[in-house]
């Protein structure tokens, strides 16, 4: 509950900022959210912004207790897509521009996940969008090379 206020504030701040042209960064001090080179997120961005924690926390219990290892909402999958910069280079947790960390810092929330979980992508493993979407992920990965 104590995270609710920052979340709301963040939403208020983020909505106009994303609606407006990206160049207009002077007014709202948004964190450097570079989502990484994947083409789309596992769910619509609006939904993710608000509900990404539910997805991962649910996945967490499913994986640990029932051994369900679907990729889509797996934390490793998020990282494999999001902790990569536009040039395909891994972004470390210490980097203030790490996708998850930067936004959490901005929203003043401190999930403990990265005390244990690696925040860096697994080399050669692409992030994927849907169940069985490895091929799409691979394609996205391949396209990284040609992306500016």
């Amino acid at each position, binding site marked *: 509950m104590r995270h609710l206020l920052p979340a709301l504030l963040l939403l208020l701040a983020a909505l106009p900022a994303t609606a407006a042209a990206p160049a207009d960064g002077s007014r709202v001090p948004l964190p450097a959210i570079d989502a990484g080179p994947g083409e789309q997120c596992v769910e619509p961005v609006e939904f993710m912004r608000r509900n990404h924690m539910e997805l991962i926390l649910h996945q967490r219990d499913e994986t640990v207790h029932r051994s369900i290892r679907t990729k889509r909402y797996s934390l490793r999958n998020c990282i494999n897509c999001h902790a990569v910069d536009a040039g395909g280079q891994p972004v470390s*947790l210490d980097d203030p521009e790490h996708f998850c960390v930067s936004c959490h810092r901005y929203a003043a929330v401190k999930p403990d996940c990265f*005390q244990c979980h690696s925040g860096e992508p697994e080399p050669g493993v692409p992030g994927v969008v849907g*169940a069985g979407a490895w091929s799409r992920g691979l394609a996205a990965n391949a396209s990284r090379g040609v992306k500016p």
Partner: protein
Amino acid sequence: MSEQPIDRYRRRLLGGAVAAGTLTLAPGLFLHRLAEAKPDADPVTSIIRWGLLVDTNRCASNCTACVDACRDEHGWTGHDRPRSDAQWIRKVELRDPATGREVSLPMMCQHCAKPPCVDVCPTGASFKRADGIVLVDKHICIGCRYCMLACPYKARSFIHEELSHQKPYSPRGKGTVEGCTLCVHRIDVGQEPACVEACTADGRGALLFGDLNDPKSAIYQALAEHPSTQVRADLNLDLGVRYRGL
């Protein structure tokens, strides 16, 4: 690598699950219930009970292949503080003072069917998966260490310092208790545990992994054929790890 026993073992080992990494094997060899790795979206079931048979006759006292492999796999490299550093698996050297006979064996979580750590854990963080693997859900472990006092095998370690750069598939962190996971992250995708793979490749093939419930599995047949021991059998914990030649 081309040693016969190894190949034989590999073939037998895969009684339970097909290793994605061992595509060299002919598909026809897999006649078992789990003819392929569990689909990602399916939960584990208690039809399977994973187990390990350690043949101490094949375990050399100077060999630490299993320990090294586990350490590499899970990254428990330690801080040069032997008493507080984690050890998920260790080599134990035994000597019978009466006869002088020496035995060497790996000791790790025995994946009890009736695990004392699970009974004592206040939050339910210590739990047994449907397929018999005893795990710590580190998300709800509060670090009380009661399981470490309850475990008869010293199989659990507490993380005494902050960590960084953990393996992506083996998250570990300060203030929680951990132990051998039987490499669930590998088993779930159809590979065998890292220690078993290493023992087969670099050791003398002393570790046999498979489904204790499957009469067709190599481990089931090996247990039926030869006498084996459960360590501290007096506690009646029904262990998933069995020893031969003790």
